[in-house]
């Protein structure tokens, strides 16, 4: 690969960074070119985007909750006491 192109390590870092702040158009272009040729970086990208989707989904929080159990009265009372000023 030519020296001006990103390698996988650089691409993966920038893919991650692009999810946290704006990166330059030039960098985005280099990433896109790399992704056309590299299926592993493409997978990396899909996987970290999936992680984000997973974390932001309310379904993750609501899943596997047993709504039939409640905070036991004695624990509730203990917490109430602890919260008193």
């Amino acid at each position, binding site marked *: 690969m030519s020296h001006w192109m990103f*390698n*996988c*390590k*650089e691409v*993966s*870092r920038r893919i*991650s*960074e692009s999810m*946290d*702040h704006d990166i330059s158009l030039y960098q985005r272009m280099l990433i896109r070119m790399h992704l056309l040729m590299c299926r*592993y*970086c493409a*997978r*990396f990208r*899909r*996987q*970290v985007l*999936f*992680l*984000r989707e*997973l*974390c*932001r*989904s*309310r*379904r*993750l*929080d609501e*899943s*596997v*909750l*047993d*709504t039939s*159990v*409640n*905070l*036991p009265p004695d*624990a*509730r009372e*203990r*917490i*109430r006491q*602890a*919260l008193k000023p």
Partner: protein
Amino acid sequence: MKQVPEEISVADPDLDPETWLDQYGDYLYQFALARIRNKAVAEDLVQETFLAALHGRKSFKGRSAVKTWLSAILKHKIVDYLRNKRREQVINDTDTVTETVDGFFHRNGSWKIRPGKWTLDPSKIYEQREFMDTFYKCLSDLPDRLSKAFMLREMEGYSTKEICNALQVSSTNSWVMVYRARMFLRRCLELFWFKKQRTKTDNVSLDV
């Protein structure tokens, strides 16, 4: 998750902690129990959550719904608990997670541990207790600060600036931390969930 509509109107910093207990005590307990499965520990974590909320009340300022805010505190408590528990169990700590991602790449920057193919069935992900367990296990496998950075960013939707304030790091540092967390987390899920799923079933599913 800033704009999640919620059944309660928020932003009153004087909201009575006892009201929180009445309204969200059961939910938080169920949440903790689903991830820890030990009643005494779940009770303790709920108590710690309310106490932390009481102390952090001033900084809350209604950036999210009370329920979301309390759950976020609880999630951090759960991950901390799991991490400490594992530390106690493992005497000879051969942590696979190092501080850098160097091990994932060859010296020329190409992948050494290549991202694998994930086949996933969304219904399984959200309904299976095992997936939740794996996910929290992987979060708690991360070094403390990496999991914090990741959770603040991806679960709580903090901006870079907010993460920098919360963790006292530079912007560049925060990006690197979240990058490492993503790298290790996806690898952990790959090892402990996706590979096992693939060997178990070969059903029709989405390719992610």
